[in-house]
């Protein structure tokens, strides 16, 4: 009786305080409250929470705040990771070193010399993300943000046609019912209609587009892949103020991480390589500086060794560093209506280092 009586008086006291000085109550730590008023810590916490609820009723809800303070236990995260799909690349060696394929909700950076196949891989992934679930895909759509102008529609048509053909072959071999149904909607026209293409000419357009991305992804909730082909190009010229560049890039990276998490999409960025002049030699390093290296979760570097293309997994939280060889193949079309089959296929020796 005494205890509860004292409690109600103190809660009233807290409320009274709140009425008078809202701000000070907000900064009132539980420990301090329990010490001053002489109640237990749990009771002080209860009292504060009552006050907080009243204060929070006034402030408007943040527009993007739904995912801003997400917390979960490691178990929940494990379950989420295990049921999550990967975007497969159709090159089994590459999928293996990535741990199954391109992961959703993470930023993957692909660095490489010019002509090594970065845009090819991006175009392939824009098609692969749409593979129906019964064939092992994530049945999503793709957003392609192009800053260099290297997107070739004809190439995407070839890749998509080959992918559809491949799925048809699987369906014939396995003869399952849902395969047939999925194939009805997995047509060339549908694949192309679900690649949303934006051409950004300079860094301002890129910044604007990334600001508008959450809204776009809320309207098109099936998007599971965002590709920015050429994050380096708009930032590598006309920038005397390197501090501004670092700040803008960090801001971009942050927004992309939030977007990737909120909408369960994979983000792929392609980066250029630049020559760093050392004391006696020069080496090829990813562009945009050291601090940019922290932005991506997974980093793949494509490079050459003589005439063999190699892909090295350089940074990953769950897979170990390894290198594989790959090829970009095109089968020579025999007739005019046979599509060319473009794929990243494992090279002759798949070296796992």
């Amino acid at each position, binding site marked *: 009786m005494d205890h509860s009586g004292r409690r109600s008086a103190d809660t009233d006291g807290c409320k009274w305080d709140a009425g008078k000085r809202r701000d000070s109550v907000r900064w009132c730590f539980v420990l301090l409250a329990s010490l001053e008023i002489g109640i237990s810590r749990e009771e002080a916490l209860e009292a504060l929470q009552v006050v907080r609820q009243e204060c929070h009723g006034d402030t408007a809800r943040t527009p993007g705040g739904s995912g801003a303070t997400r917390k979960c236990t490691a178990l929940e995260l494990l379950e989420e990771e295990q049921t999550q799909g990967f975007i497969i690349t159709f090159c089994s060696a590459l999928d293996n070193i990535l741990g199954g394929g391109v992961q959703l909700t993470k930023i993957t950076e692909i660095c490489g010399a010019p002509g090594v196949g970065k845009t090819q891989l991006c175009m392939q992934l824009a098609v692969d993300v749409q593979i129906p679930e019964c064939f092992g895909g994530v049945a999503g759509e793709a957003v392609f943000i192009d800053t260099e102008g290297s997107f070739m529609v004809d190439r995407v048509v070839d890749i998509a046609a080959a992918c559809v053909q491949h799925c048809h072959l699987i369906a014939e071999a396995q003869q399952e019912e849902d395969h047939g149904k999925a194939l009805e909607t997995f047509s060339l026209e549908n694949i192309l209609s679900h*690649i949303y293409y934006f051409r950004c000419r300079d860094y301002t357009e890129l910044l604007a587009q990334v600001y508008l991305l959450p809204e776009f992804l809320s309207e098109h909730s099936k998007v599971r892949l965002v590709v920015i082909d050429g994050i380096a190009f708009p930032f*590598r010229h006309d920038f005397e103020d390197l501090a501004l560049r670092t700040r803008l890039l960090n801001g971009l990276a942050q927004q992309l991480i939030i977007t990737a998490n909120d909408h369960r999409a994979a983000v792929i960025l392609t980066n250029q390589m630049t020559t760093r002049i050392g004391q006696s030699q*020069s080496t090829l390093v990813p562009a945009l500086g050291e601090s940019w290296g922290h932005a991506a979760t997974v980093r793949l570097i494509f490079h050459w060794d*003589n005439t063999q293309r190699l892909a090295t997994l350089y940074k990953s939280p769950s897979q170990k560093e390894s290198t594989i060889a790959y090829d970009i193949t095109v089968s020579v079309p025999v007739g005019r209506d046979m599509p060319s089959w473009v794929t990243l296929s494992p090279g002759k020796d798949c070296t796992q280092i």
Partner: protein
Amino acid sequence: MAAKKLRRAQLSQEMCERLSRYQITTCQDFLCLSLLELMKVTGQSYYEVQKLLCKVSRACAPKMQTAYEMKLRKSVNPSSAFLSTTLHSLDRVLHGGVPCGSLTEITSPPGCGKTQFCIMLSVLATLPVSMGGLDGAVIYIDTESAFSAERLIEIAANRFPAYYDSDEKLLCMTRSIHLYRELTCCSVLKRIMSLEEEIILKKVKLVIIDSVASVVRKEFDTKLQGNLAERSNFLTRGASVLKYLAEEFSIPVILTNQITTALSSGPGVRADLVSPADDLSLSEGSSVSGKRDSAYVTAALGNTWSHSVNTRLILQYHDLPTRQLLVAKSPVAPFSTFFYTIEKSGLVLQGHV
């Protein structure tokens, strides 16, 4: 798009006035500020600033198109996607010819035929569409004073004798090729910036710059401090304006480059080797593996430039008079080699044409 004034972004009059006091007048200025700075200059709350950001972003973000719409647009106008080079094997490998809307680079040691190739392409661009041309004018920016009008007429008369059967037709063709002689980097850049008006006025369908390397290498000595960064800056600025022009008007842009010999001593300089095809010693066969650490030849202007061009063709000597044409970088073609000679009618491919 970046220089769009905030007034036109549908911000209120008083907001624009307030921002102009802080010298923020364009969308670019607005988007470069951090959220905190924006809150300070606009005097608005966090949520209001988010809404303003979305408004400004919408004003300068690019328009969305699906890949399907792009394909439909291309199929409506198929002939305008390429400039056929009339070298049939090359056209087949490049899926039509020199692509419109992107930058193509032709690199070679001196005397291999870059200027000849450029002159030949100028003739082809002025041909009517029915003969595989683009039926338009040509802008030829000459930095080496290597253009010869007599050779132009010789190529035209010998390559298409049936079409150019009268002097009248030849003179008409020469009238549509506009030649500019620029001898410094600064004037080349100024000329590139002013090209937009010329393209619209004169109905230009092809832009040739012969050669970028000669002006750049004359003025920038990369061994001096700071010159490398300045050179990269100049090149990427030029490249981005040219890319914009190429895409906006759907025309091919052709640039020529030189070959440089790099003396190497060890693995350090291997870094500059952007692709095996660029290492011309490799294309001579597989017996060169022992010679890797002595001198090797590569395209000039560095790594950053190689990222900016979309297609790269390399010409080099074989057994005189035969020469070799390599497709070193292309989003649609694999590495291919062709042999050609230079005749009265321009370049002629050997073997099965």
